[in-house]
Every structure is written in C-alpha cells, then in structure tokens.
C-alpha cells in the first residue's frame, strides 16, 4: 500500500462567465508515493504542481479522478490528522507570536496541551527559531516565516508531510537546514512529498521524482532509474602526447575535441566505442591521463521532458 495514490486526476476550471472558455490545468495525472519516501514533484512554473497539491489536500475539488492518502479517501477530514502541509509563499497570522501560532495549529491538529508544551520548544529549536519564541510573526523575515511554516506543518507529528516549494525565500544555510529537516523526517519513517522547480534540491534528497509539464505527468521514477535510463551518458577522455584532431577515429566518434598544447580533451557519446578510441590513441603514441564517465543530470531530463510539452 502507498501513502499517496493519485489516479487519473483532472481539473477543469469552470469559467466565471458563459462567454469565457473552461481551462483544464490537470490532465489525468496519476502517481503514487510509497511510505517513507521523499518524493520530489518537479515542474516549471504553471505546470499544475500547486493545483495537484490543493486537490490532494481537499482545498480544491477534482473534476475527475481520485486521491487516497494513507489508505483513505483524501476528502475524509480525519485523514488530515496525519498530514502536515506548508503552502507556497505562506502568510500567517501576524498578530500571533511564534509560540501562539504553533499552539493554534497544534490544537487544530488535535494535539493535547501537555504534549504541545513539550513539542513547541523542540520544534522551534529544530527550525532555528528558539530566540523568536515570543516574537510576533509580523516581525519575522521571509526566511523566518518559511521556517515557522515548516514548524506548523510538523507540530502534530504527521505521518505524511506535503511541502509546496519549501526552499523558496531561503538563503543557502536555510536551504540546507530544510534539507536536513526533510532527511531527518525520512529517518523517522515519515513520507515527504514536496514540489519545487529547483532541481538541485530534488537531486540531493529525493528517492523518487515525478515531472509535471502543462498539467501532464511526463515522467515518474526513482532518481537512479531516471538518470540512467533516460539520458545517454557521455565519457570525458584526457590524453597526452597526441593531436586528437589528427586521429580519424577520434574525429569521427568524439562529440567535441579540445587541444591544449600537448594535452587533448575529448567528449565521447557513451562508452560503446571507448575501447576503439583508446586503442587508436595508443597506436598514435598517446598516453591516457583520465577517463571520466558523466551520468545524465536530472536537469537534462527535466529540460528534455518539459520542452517536449512546450
């Protein structure tokens, strides 16, 4: 059983006036997220990531399709006891102090007052806001708001955490802190579903990735599967004592050849003809310095898949 099961989810926004056209923002989106996974939901701006998350959380109704969370229908309000959510660019009640704010969300999440008294200082320390415990949120910076937002998503110790662009507005230290928190949550056995358009965040921490473009799922898979399966690997070869351009096989096979004095750098499109090229280099009196295989990056996959939809 999976923590999130999205089956053929579509959303068509009804027009406000009869002369306007209906707009479909999601087209039969299907994906599943296993328990204990960190799932990265990637897509360019306007791809439909936030719409999908809103439907999953019951903030928006799907036109067709179903969503199950933790084995129950997403529209069952009780399942929300086990879900934490941080929206994109959150705005919170600025008249509350950090402690009051977490207390409010904790009580809404049906946490006992005695548990909250212990949990609030722990969470504030976890997100680096201990000093700001009694400060009203109106005096918080954007990064601090993002941190307190993350704390409210975790205050009721949810099993499933959904984060919409959790790293936006954070400096490099803050981004690392959030990544560490997410990894810590996985270590506790939580399931994390987070949307972003920042690929490096996904590459660093996600187990599986889904790419959405123009409201359609274009790829879902584990990081290893995606990177190895979808993009041809390239191999970087560096040799000494030859002029690469003068070897016919190198000219034929290499995608690019650069000569820096005695040293030749060449990029080959995969490993298929590597042995042939190395033999030709040796035959020409050259000496091998290094071979560096390059895996395709998630960014390449992202650009390739999303550009097919534009």
């Amino acid at each position: 059983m999976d923590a999130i099961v999205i089956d053929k989810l579509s959303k068509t926004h009804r027009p406000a006036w009869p002369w306007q056209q209906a707009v479909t923002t999601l087209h039969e989106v299907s994906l599943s997220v296993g328990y204990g996974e960190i799932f990265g939901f990637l897509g360019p701006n306007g791809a439909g990531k936030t719409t999908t998350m809103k439907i999953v959380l019951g903030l928006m109704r799907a036109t067709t399709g179903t969503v199950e969370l933790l084995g129950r229908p997403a529209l069952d309000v009780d399942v929300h006891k086990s879900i934490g959510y941080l929206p994109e660019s959150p705005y919170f009640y600025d008249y509350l102090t950090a402690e009051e704010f977490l207390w409010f969300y904790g009580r809404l999440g049906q946490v006992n007052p005695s548990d909250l008294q212990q949990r609030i200082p722990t969470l504030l320390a976890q997100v680096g806001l201990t000093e700001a415990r009694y400060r009203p949120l109106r005096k918080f910076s954007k990064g601090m708001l993002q941190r307190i937002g993350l704390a409210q998503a975790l205050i009721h110790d949810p099993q499933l955490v959904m984060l919409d662009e959790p790293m936006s507005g954070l400096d490099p230290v803050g981004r690392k802190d959030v990544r560490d928190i997410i990894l810590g949550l996985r270590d506790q056995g939580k399931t994390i579903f987070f949307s972003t358009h920042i690929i490096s965040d996904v590459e660093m921490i996600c187990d599986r990735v889904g790419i959405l473009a123009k409201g359609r799922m274009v790829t879902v898979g584990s990081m290893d599967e995606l990177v190895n399966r979808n993009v041809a690997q390239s191999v970087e070869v560096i040799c000494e004592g030859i002029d690469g351009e003068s070897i016919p096989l190198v000219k034929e096979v290499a995608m690019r050849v650069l000569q820096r004095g005695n040293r030749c750098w060449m990029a080959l499109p995969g490993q298929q003809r590597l042995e042939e090229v190395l033999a030709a280099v040796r035959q020409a009196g050259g000496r091998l310095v290094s071979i560096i295989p390059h895996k395709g990056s998630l960014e390449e996959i992202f650009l390739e898949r999303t550009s097919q939809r534009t």
Partner: protein
Amino acid sequence: MHSLLVVAQNTFRETLRDKILYNLVFFALLLIGASVLLGTLTIGEQARVVNDVGLAAINLVGVIIAIFVGIGLVTKEIDRRTIYTILARPITRTQFVMGKYCGLIFIGGLNISIMFSMFLVTVWLSGSTIQGSLFQAVELMLVEVLVMTAIAMFFSTFSSPTLSAIMTLGFYVIGHLTGDLKRIAEKSKDPIAEGITTALYYICPNLELFNIKGQAASGIVVSVDYQLATTFYGLLYAALLLVAACRIFERRDF
C-alpha cells in the same frame, strides 16, 4: 466541535488585537459620556436623552463591528491564503465558518456588554433610574448583531470584501425600511416594481423589529411574547443564512 472552538478562540484573539475595535468602543464610550452633557441642555428630558444617545451609540458600534469585521474575517483568510493551512487540518469547512462566526459573536457580545455596563454606570451617575426596558433593548440589539454578522459572513463566503460590504450595508438599510417596502408594494401599480419590493420584503430581514430603542428610552416595556418572538425570528434568520453560507463555502475551490 473542538476545531470549531479553536477557530473561534483564534478569531476572538484576532479581533481583540485589532486597534480599530478599541477606537470604535472608545468612540461609543465617548458618546455615552457626552449624552450626560447633552441631557443637561434639555429641561426635564435628561434621562431620556441619556438613554437615547447611549442606546444609539451601542447599537451603531455593535452593527459596525458586525458588518466590517464580519466581512473581513473569511475574505482575509482567503486573500492571505491562511485558509490553506487551516483546511489542511482535521476541520470541516462548516466548522471553520461556524468557528469564525462564533468568535466574532463572542467579541461582539463582549463589546456590547462593556458598552452597556458603561452606559448603565452613566445612567446611574446622572441620577436617573435604570429601567428594565433598557435591558430589553440591548438584548434585541444583540440579536440584530447576530443577524448582521450572519449576513456579512454569508456574502463574504462567495464575494469580494467590497461587494460584501455593499450588499451587507444594503441589507441593513433595506432591513430597516421593510415596513415602507410593504406599503410601496401594496400601493404600486407597476407589477414589476411590486414584484421587486415584495421580494425584497421577504428576503431582507425586518430589522426594525429589533429596534425598540425609542420605547426603551422612555421606559416603555415591550411584552415578553414580542421579545421572545423577535429573538426567535432573528436567530432563525441568522441560522438559515449560516446554513447557506456553509453550503456555499463547502463547494468553493481555494
């Protein structure tokens, strides 16, 4: 019920920390105090003037809070997107709307109680008798605030703050003119005008029923039957509007 109370408590705190509220209450207290001075300008009517001005000030501020704070409560949550994190919790939309309503009603009731207490102290200090009719008047004011808050909440569940304000104020004005509407409908020879005025008469609440300030200021006590029937009418009207507001809110996309 638990979630409803948590939202109500937060709404109460939110409104309590709003400076506008204090300004309005201060304004009402100033008016109540000034009524003593106004009373001294009249001969033999001081008690009546104090009662008139005091009750009017309480009514005005109570209704202003109900309308303008009531409109903002739900729309602010949507505009600022705080509603996302709330509805992602184990709370139904009906509980959210009702929590907001209860929080505002509580603050409205508290304000009216404070203003009324100050008013009674003023009456007592001015040497007049505190009459039972004043309590009747303030009870119906409270019911009017319940109705006006429900109207404001109803409109704010599906329209913009500006439109909600216009519609709620429209209901308030028409609600105090329903008697005239009925007379216009009866005398109108144009069937369309008659239809519109009749429809407005039945749709809008008859808010004049809650207005017994004139009698109360003169010490005239209304019957218990009238008091109960009018209270029941107000509660029923507010309840129907809240049911409609919750139904609309349940269907909304955010």
